[in-house]
């Protein structure tokens, strides 16, 4: 941590230079969306001021420059995830879009039949739940859910039990890498290995992992891996789907249109190669380039440094809050990114409102994980979620605000 200069990092985020309710912003809602560093904003602006042009198939200079920038971004992202080639990187509009691409094309592929099983965990975000429910509805497959323990984690025994129960029928396992609600890190490598042995494809929702972990899709052996740019210091409207080449080849295209075709005729249309087959229409060119810049930004800080720092902040916050009577912390103690809690007898919405009035942005509610809330018999939590720029003062102001809020509500 000594090497990590958080105040230098902070100075790179323009929004932190402004006040909210007359107080410096304490932004602890990074799991919902991250703030954007100047380094990324500058790349977006540079793109529009110097390069902007529609990509591919253009002869003219700008079109070529923009294409080069866009495809370089793809290669950088491929390297960042350790994909085996840039053709395995599909640009999407976000994690949700990526999961739907997989669930929809699996649906069209005819690979999912009535009685087949699709499994998710009880920790999943709605975006990694509802698309699978919809696929089940359409295909006659059955959704099975791996339960979570009281601690908010997955017990390998439960998972084994599910594998046994669904033996021969498990087609897809869709898992989050890190829980956005509780910060739980899933033991993916082992789970993926078991799922593969059971003959299932594994889709990983990496929306909360990419900002905090160095992800190696080949080492994980994930079949598909999705994330959103806006949660990793990049703009809104861009995301990535990684897929193993051979699997992406097997799936039919999803959206039809420009770019994804090789040749269109009324007698029959042929589709383009990967990755273009899955990228219909003008892509979010600026978004892709800015996403690569955001990953560069993170790599320059060093992902390990960032996560060491964030973990220290999370532990500090957990410690500071424990002095409050009635505190309930969710998730295991080695949580990553997010710290979720409630105060006995106090509504999370009330406390969140008061904490916000003190200039602290935290999120309240179900965090798009209603089934998980139901499992714990609650309607929501307060969640403080951390990014590379949060510092000890942020943590201390959070703790202070929560204490004061609790006082007002008791």
């Amino acid at each position, binding site marked *: 941590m000594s090497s990590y200069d958080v105040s230098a990092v902070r100075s790179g985020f323009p929004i932190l230079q402004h006040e909210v309710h007359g107080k410096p912003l304490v932004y602890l809602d990074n799991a919902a969306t991250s703030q954007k560093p100047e380094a990324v904003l500058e790349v977006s602006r540079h793109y529009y001021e110097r390069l902007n042009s529609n990509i591919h198939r253009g002869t003219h200079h700008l079109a070529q420059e923009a294409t080069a920038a866009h495809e370089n971004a793809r290669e950088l992202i491929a390297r960042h995830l350790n994909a085996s080639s840039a053709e395995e990187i599909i640009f999407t509009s976000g994690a949700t879009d990526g999961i739907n691409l997989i669930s929809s094309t699996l649906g069209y592929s005819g690979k999912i039949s009535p009685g087949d099983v699709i499994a998710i965990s009880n920790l999943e975000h709605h975006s990694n739940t509802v698309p699978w429910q919809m696929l089940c509805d359409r295909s006659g497959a059955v959704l099975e859910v791996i339960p979570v323990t009281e601690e908010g984690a997955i017990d390998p025994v439960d998972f084994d039990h599910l594998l046994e129960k669904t033996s021969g029928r498990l087609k897809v396992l869709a898992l989050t890498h890190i829980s956005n609600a509780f910060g739980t890190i899933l033991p993916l490598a082992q789970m993926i290995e078991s799922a593969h042995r059971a003959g299932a494809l594994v889709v990983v929702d990496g929306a909360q992992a990419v900002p905090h972990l160095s992800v190696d899709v080949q080492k994980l052996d994930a079949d598909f891996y999705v994330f959103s740019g806006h949660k990793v210091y990049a703009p809104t409207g861009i995301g990535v789907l990684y897929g193993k080449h051979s699997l992406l080849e097997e799936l039919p295209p999803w959206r039809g249109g420009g770019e994804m075709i090789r040749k269109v005729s009324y007698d029959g249309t042929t589709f383009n190669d990967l990755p273009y087959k899955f990228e219909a229409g003008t892509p979010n060119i600026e978004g892709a380039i800015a996403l690569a810049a955001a990953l560069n930004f993170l790599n320059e800080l060093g992902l390990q440094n960032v996560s060491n720092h964030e973990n220290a902040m999370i532990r500090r916050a957990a410690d500071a809050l424990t002095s409050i009577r009635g505190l309930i912390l969710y998730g295991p103690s080695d949580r990553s990114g997010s710290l979720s809690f409630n105060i006995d007898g*106090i*509504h999370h*919405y*009330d406390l969140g*409102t*008061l904490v*916000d*009035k003190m200039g602290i942005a935290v999120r*309240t*509610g179900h965090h798009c994980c209603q089934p998980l809330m139901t499992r714990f018999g609650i*309607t*929501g939590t307060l969640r403080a979620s951390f990014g590379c720029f949060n510092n000890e003062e942020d943590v201390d102001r959070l703790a202070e605000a929560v204490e004061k809020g609790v006082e*007002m*509500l008791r």
Partner: protein
Amino acid sequence: MLIVSLKLWKKEWKCCADTPQYSHVLLPLKMTINERQEQLLKDLSLFQDWTERYEYVISLGRQLNEMPPESKTEDKLIEGCQSQVWLEAYFEDGGVHYRADSDSQITKGMIALFIHFLDGESPENILTADFAFIEKTGLKEHLAPTRANALNLMAIQMKQRALDFTGAPD
């Protein structure tokens, strides 16, 4: 530019009403709805900062009776809120009365405000009540905007319930 306005989108915010027994504890019943609104504006202007305003609102909520659990039925639940809100109305002594509750103290306090304005009034008075005061209180600035918008929607819900009793004998 177009950016900063508090006008919020309607659908997302069908939020957050709750009501207790009618409790003209705080404001004399004989005042008109308008007079009571004026009174509130005066009260609020006395507060120094947002903490006091919130504490006032929370205290209003505390003074209201809880709804018994068995009354908190699905049909009274207002969906789509961060907090749960149950609202019901009944007609008695020539006026509409409200009962409501919420698991959120702030929400409960806010609905208490409305109860003070509306409780016991005729359906016609309630339906024609002018809630322009919501804009004037400055509460919107001092409440989170979702809350502020919730005020509008609470008003709509309460008028909605009053509709059932129009034409009732007083």
